């Protein structure tokens, strides 16, 4: 059975997703500079507990084996554990991503006792210095504390999830050592220019040399390290990495956001990739009948990449990465290992310069932005006083949307000091 055949079958789509990502809330105690869902404040229109349970009922009926729950920080929802229990009681497994804020001793013991729950702790630096520059001061200590609790409770094989950046790409061995120390499994995923990630993409995405080192490292560590199949664009370096080397958007994966909107993938929160809303007839109808998903499941010609000898392995890369960097969806990925993406971006920039200001096309922005308005404790780039970290990551200044009654930040309305 060749992987090619599997990819071909999966490209036509499945009766139900293999992996469904469900962002339960946009509320978050942190304000990571690269947050792909631009999270921070709770959306007042968030699905209620009853609506969430109805989603779980649907997933059970569709036999979605498990759901990846994220956010925002999902554990800050008051009904989070109730929903986890409800899902597992209905044979829908749960893997949730957390920054660790609510993983205390008692929670860790409870999690360790269930076959149906898996935990993924987000960490973007093997040292506090590198991690906290992206995720906020104190976030490294918070994650380590959570991992200590999980390890002490006997929860083996939980995941340490790392977004590979220019700043941490040199720490892969340290991440692996950290995972080994806590009996965890390392998961490395690709930085996407999605959400606030678009603002920091140019500073954070790995260099070409780092990409090559990452590829070699992944080849050397094979099946010990998870990747969410997110590095399939690196297959053009040579042998394909193990896993499903394809874009799964709308075919085997999709995203349900906190207000019930269904997007083709977790990295594409934009109206162009919005398939529907579960409130208007349920998730199953969106998955089966959405015209957008039907299109994504149809044959793709490969466009500018079709003549490339590596097209069969890299499949043109990540749709979301292309979209949010202003590249055509049927062209090369911005991180194309042959450099065609960088070339396309340079050509785009030149063409833009030649136009008068009004004629220039802005890069696509995420459809929704729930970023905190005011400063968030420990968060870099938020107009704070000098930070004891060497990595400076700025944010593009954005006009703040109007305040909402439900803003969780007590400092909502306080004007941030601009980019920094």
């Amino acid at each position: 059975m060749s992987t090619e055949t599997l990819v071909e079958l999966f490209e036509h789509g499945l009766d139900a997703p293999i992996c469904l990502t469900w962002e339960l809330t946009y509320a978050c105690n942190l304000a990571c500079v690269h947050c792909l869902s631009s999270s921070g404040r709770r959306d007042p229109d968030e699905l209620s507990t009853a609506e969430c349970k109805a989603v779980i009922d649907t997933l059970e009926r569709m036999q979605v084996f498990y759901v990846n729950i994220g956010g925002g920080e999902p554990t800050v929802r008051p009904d989070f554990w109730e929903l986890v229990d409800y899902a597992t009681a209905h044979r829908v497994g749960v893997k949730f991503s957390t920054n660790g804020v609510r993983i205390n001793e008692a929670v860790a013991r409870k999690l360790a006792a269930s076959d149906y729950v898996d935990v993924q702790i987000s960490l973007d630096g093997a040292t506090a210095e590198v991690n906290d520059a992206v995720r906020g001061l104190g976030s490294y200590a918070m994650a380590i504390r959570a991992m200590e609790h999980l390890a002490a409770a006997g929860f083996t094989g939980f995941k340490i999830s790392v977004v590979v950046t220019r700043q941490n790409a040199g720490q892969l061995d340290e991440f692996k050592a950290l995972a080994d120390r806590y009996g965890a499994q390392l998961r490395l995923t690709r930085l996407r220019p999605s959400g606030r990630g678009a603002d920091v993409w140019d500073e954070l995405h790995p260099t070409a040399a780092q990409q090559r080192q990452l590829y070699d490292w992944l080849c050397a560590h094979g099946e010990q390290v998870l990747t969410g199949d997110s590095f399939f664009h690196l297959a053009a370096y040579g042998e394909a990495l193990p896993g499903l080397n394809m874009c799964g958007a709308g075919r085997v994966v999709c995203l349900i956001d906190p207000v019930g909107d269904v997007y083709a993938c977790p990295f594409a929160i934009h109206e162009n990739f919005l398939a529907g809303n579960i409130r208007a007839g349920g998730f199953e109808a969106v998955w089966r009948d959405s015209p957008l998903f039907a299109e994504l499941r149809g044959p793709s010609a490969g466009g500018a990449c079709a003549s490339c000898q590596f097209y069969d392995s890299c499949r043109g890369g990540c749709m979301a990465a292309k979209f949010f960097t202003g590249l055509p969806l049927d062209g090369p990925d911005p991180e194309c290992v042959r450099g065609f993406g960088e070339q396309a971006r340079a050509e785009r920039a030149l063409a833009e310069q030649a136009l008068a200001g009004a004629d220039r096309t802005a890069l696509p922005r995420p459809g929704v932005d729930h970023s905190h308005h005011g400063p968030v404790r420990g968060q870099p780039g938020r107009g704070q006083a000098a930070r004891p970290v060497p990595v400076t990551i700025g944010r593009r200044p954005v006009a703040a949307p109007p305040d909402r009654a439900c803003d969780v930040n007590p400092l909502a309305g306080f004007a941030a000091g601009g980019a920094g």
Partner: protein
Amino acid sequence: MSTDHARAGLLTAAGPASSTGPFDLDCPWRLDDRVAIRPEPFGALLYHFGTRRLSFLKNATMLAVVRSLGEHPSARAACEAAGIQPGSLAAYQRGLAVLAESHMITPQGAA
């Protein structure tokens, strides 16, 4: 995407074309209690909640065999009941071996 099980080599294809070690067709087998089966147009997907592994059945015949294993005194009997001809039995035997190796199926009587 986030199909981690695939990246970790946890996505195994079990079907007539797979190949691995010997599998005792004359023993009684059954699906592990922690495995869920989802039929798909091409066959089926299997998911093991304990190992968090995903498996893939290549066709409807393989699905019929796997589903009915527990009702037969041996895997051979399940294959015969599913209409598998002696000439293609070896291929299904290899598919079952893949499932046994990944603990999707287990000997009857085992915990």
